[in-house]
């Protein structure tokens, strides 16, 4: 019985410490976009393109987590689209998500045809990350670069959400 409890405890603690064990990876932008970039369901979508190797991206990640916390009850979805390299997913991305206890939805985009899909995200985007798209139905805004503060993100979010 004691052993049983111990193993339950171990299992639970393992589950708690390793919330992230696998991720959906899209090798076609269009398939990812269909799922997240082009919804019209009354929700406000916040889509952030990032990678663990990108310093400014990692720095602003807590703002997106905060946004999720503040608005998840209010028809809002936050999706972090990781551009991490496939061979770094197990060694870097998953440990990062677990270490920082990331609550937002995370997907991997691994479409090598960047010359085509970057324009689909936004014509003005040159390809440097991070960038963020916030949309609800037809209302849409593209933010090129990082957010300096949570307030900046919140303000932009509300301009679409309200």
């Amino acid at each position, binding site marked *: 019985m004691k052993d049983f409890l111990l193993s339950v405890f171990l299992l639970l603690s393992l589950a708690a410490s390793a919330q992230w064990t696998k991720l959906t990876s899209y090798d076609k932008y269009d398939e990812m976009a269909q799922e997240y970039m082009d919804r019209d369901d009354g929700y406000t979508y916040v889509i952030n393109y990032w990678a663990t*190797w*990108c*310093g*400014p991206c990692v720095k602003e990640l807590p703002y997106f987590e905060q946004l999720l916390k503040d608005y998840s009850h209010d028809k809002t979805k936050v999706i972090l689209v990781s*551009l991490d*390299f496939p061979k770094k997913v197990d060694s870097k991305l998953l440990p990062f998500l677990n270490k920082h206890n990331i609550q937002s939805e995370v997907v991997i985009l691994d479409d*090598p*045809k*960047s*010359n085509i899909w*970057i*324009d689909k995200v936004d014509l003005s*985007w*040159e*390809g*440097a*990350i*991070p960038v963020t798209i916030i949309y609800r139905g037809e209302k849409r805004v593209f933010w090129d*670069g*990082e957010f300096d503060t949570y307030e900046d993100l919140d303000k932009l979010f509300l301009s679409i959400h309200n």
Partner: protein
Amino acid sequence: MSQFLLVLFSLVMPFTSSNEVGDPYTVGDKVEDFNLKSVDGNMYSLSSAKNVKGYIVVFTCNHCPYAVMYEDRMNDLNAFANKNDFALFAINPNDPNKVPEDGFAEMQVRAKEKGFEFPYMMDEGQKVYPKWGATKTPHAYVLDANMVIQYIGAIDNSPRDAAAATINYVEKAARSILLGETPAITKTKAIGCSIKTM
């Protein structure tokens, strides 16, 4: 007082942000020559390359994984340039105060490790990259003999796997210039690291 400063700031900001460098270059623009210090300690300009048929300029750096993935291909590109009377220049646009890994001494180390035989220069004071409109590393430009930009964008179409590249955009543009033609592809996009400023 703080309101006064705010008003002053908002009056000044639009001017500083838009007039500081003018519109960045685009395809068809003739560039102003630069004069930057390379890892060998010498200053280089486009015009320091004599009797060339064109120029390749790549904004790149030490720290960005996408730039790192192209390091060996930069050597290949230099071999291509030498063979075809082009001159290759690499410029690190990042502020080393923001990214210590992109400091001048660190550039020297990397250039030696990778055996770079082309100038790898620091954009001291970050004055060059805004004029060129570079937004990331790597960001490549191909210019004709008159220093007119003919191509802006990625080096090839497969950042992560050199062997899987089916189009080398930079070489393709250079070959068009050699033939006296306008490149068929003049702009491409690729993922990269933003240019780091304080």
